């Protein structure tokens, strides 16, 4: 799928269209920053990258190839990451290959598998109460609250909240594994 199908609506200022674009673009932009993971906070850089992509999208000029906005976001992210390395005086990373990262942007975006989504939702629905509460709190906060606040809202200590969240993640991974779904090792770690 060419994520540039959302471009006209994004340029028109439609946040929902940008959300649709992000659902396909986010993993690739995140992966393009992998080589910086030891020296900068990639999640912070990624969120700022996506915000800046939204801000400059109206000035984006397509080159005729698919997923042009993804490639632009990868460039924005890399430039921001390099700036962060300089600002924080971190040791520069090796193996940071922009061309390889941009090539990832050329790949067609995968369409979410509805059967996988269904399986994950069913596994989530089987969670015990407290792990489910911790998972749901993270999802509902959408990155807007830190874990201390989420724990307080659930009348848990921070450790308890984190242990319940870990348990939720691991139980979902186990459940998916039993269904024959290959899961990211880090999900079940």
């Amino acid at each position: 799928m060419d994520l540039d199908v959302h471009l006209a609506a994004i340029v028109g200022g439609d946040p929902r269209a940008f959300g649709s674009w992000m659902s396909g673009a986010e993993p690739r932009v995140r992966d393009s920053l992998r080589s910086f993971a030891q020296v900068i906070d990639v999640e912070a850089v990624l969120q700022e990258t996506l915000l800046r992509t939204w801000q400059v999208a109206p000035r984006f000029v397509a080159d005729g190839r698919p997923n042009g906005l993804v490639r632009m976001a990868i460039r924005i992210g890399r430039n921001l990451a390099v700036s962060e390395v300089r600002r924080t005086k971190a040791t520069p990373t090796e193996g940071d290959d922009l061309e390889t990262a941009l090539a990832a942007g050329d790949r067609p975006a995968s369409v979410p598998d509805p059967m996988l989504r269904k399986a994950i939702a069913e596994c989530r629905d089987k969670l015990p109460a407290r792990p489910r509460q911790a998972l749901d709190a993270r999802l509902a906060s959408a990155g807007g609250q830190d874990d201390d606040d989420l724990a307080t809202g659930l009348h848990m200590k921070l450790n308890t909240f984190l242990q319940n969240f870990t348990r939720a993640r691991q139980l979902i991974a186990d459940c998916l594994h039993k269904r024959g779904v290959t899961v990211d090792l880090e999900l079940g770690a």
Partner: protein
Amino acid sequence: MTGDDDDNHDSPGDGGPRGPRGPGGPGGPGGDDELLIEQVASAYRPVPRDELRYHPRWHDLSAAGRERAFARAGALRALEAALDPDGLSTTARAVLARITGQR
């Protein structure tokens, strides 16, 4: 799926994110504190002002812990997107909140 709710695991000196490190802590055999990685792998980040603001606990992680937090974040975002009606991760939701002025 079965299992007891993890509801009462806080015990004095049990080595939480700020506590003494047991297995899995920086001083323990597992390397980094798993709960610290769990925190940093979330999409929560303070809203930037003049410059980017990192997760407050990111600096507490070793290089290996930062790598794991990165990998964990990617796995969690995929899970979150699968559970979201619009297919959005909490990272995407956080960005949309900033775009629409909700944050």
